[in-house]
């Protein structure tokens, strides 16, 4: 047995900060693509956000999308090339803020694509502004006294929101804050891609991730923040799974 870099990932260093969860999630997605043997027919969309250089790390075809528009672009790709596997990789600012419309309607139409949603409760690339998923009381550069429930609203739970729709086939929330969680996240991401390969419809995996730099915490403290604070607001689990029902939702 060998545990080493998945072939879908280029052998290059990433630009992410130390302790950032993106590197782990990249590996999990790449491993899922390797395991399913779909690298040659996968097309991804790169987001705007910390993962904007996503295309430098993945050995698959890639389109860079404007902020939040990944699901719309992925819809077009999938409809024009239905035999290809199409996935988007988006952060919380991208998916839950400017791209909320695209996300909800793509899920509602049950487009047969996979969405990897990285939730770190903050805008990373732009310098630590408040995101729709920031926690109550969380201090960011645009909520210096902490996010308030009345002024800014409470954090949006994307999995719960989308699971009320009839369209999505598979929705799960996982985390990368411990080795056990990472193993579960690997299974969820592989299942989401399998869902698309089998033509079951829209699949989304939300991954709770660490941002030590913009949270102004050490990597170890950032892991504790995910485990103690984020999981209390964003509980892990499967929110929708129709994959066992053949033919439905396609």
């Amino acid at each position, binding site marked *: *047995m*060998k*545990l*080493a*870099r998945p072939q879908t*990932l280029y052998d290059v*260093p*990433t630009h*992410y*900060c*130390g*302790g*950032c*969860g*993106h*590197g*782990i999630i990249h*590996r999990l997605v790449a491993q899922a693509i390797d395991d399913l043997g779909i690298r040659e027919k996968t097309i991804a969309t790169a987001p705007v956000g910390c993962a904007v250089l996503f295309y430098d790390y993945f050995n698959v075809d890639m389109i860079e999308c404007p902020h939040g528009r990944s699901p719309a672009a992925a819809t077009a790709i999938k409809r024009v090339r239905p035999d290809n596997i199409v996935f988007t990789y988006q952060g919380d600012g991208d998916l839950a803020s400017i791209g909320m419309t695209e996300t909800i309607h793509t899920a509602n139409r049950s487009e047969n694509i996979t969405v990897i949603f990285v939730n770190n409760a903050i805008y990373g690339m732009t310098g630590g502004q408040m995101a729709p998923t920031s926690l109550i009381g969380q201090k960011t550069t645009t909520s210096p006294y902490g996010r308030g429930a009345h002024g800014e609203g409470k954090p949006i739970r994307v999995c719960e929101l989308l699971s009320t729709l009839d369209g999505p086939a598979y929705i799960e929330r996982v985390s990368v804050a*411990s*080795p056990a969680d*990472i*193993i579960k996240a690997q299974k969820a991401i592989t299942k989401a891609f399998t869902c698309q390969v089998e033509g079951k419809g829209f699949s989304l995996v939300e991954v709770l991730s660490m941002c*030590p730099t913009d949270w102004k915490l050490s*990597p*170890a403290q950032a*892991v504790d923040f995910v485990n103690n604070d984020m999981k209390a607001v964003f509980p892990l689990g499967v929110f929708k799974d129709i994959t066992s029902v053949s033919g439905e939702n396609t």
Partner: protein
Amino acid sequence: MAQIKFNIERCKSCELCVAACPRKLITMSDDYNPKGVRYACIHDTAKCSACGMCYRTCPDLVIEIEK
């Protein structure tokens, strides 16, 4: 015996692997890698069971394990 290899030039010193190792075999170096940070390393490889927890936790694929 397990072969565990650290690509120290890629290490960003986040120490997630140090916390992940169930046998607490991974430590941080006294010197610095080309990035200018202390890097993760393992001295007592004989005690390593190749469970892969460090590999799974590392965001930068510093660690490779073969057994």
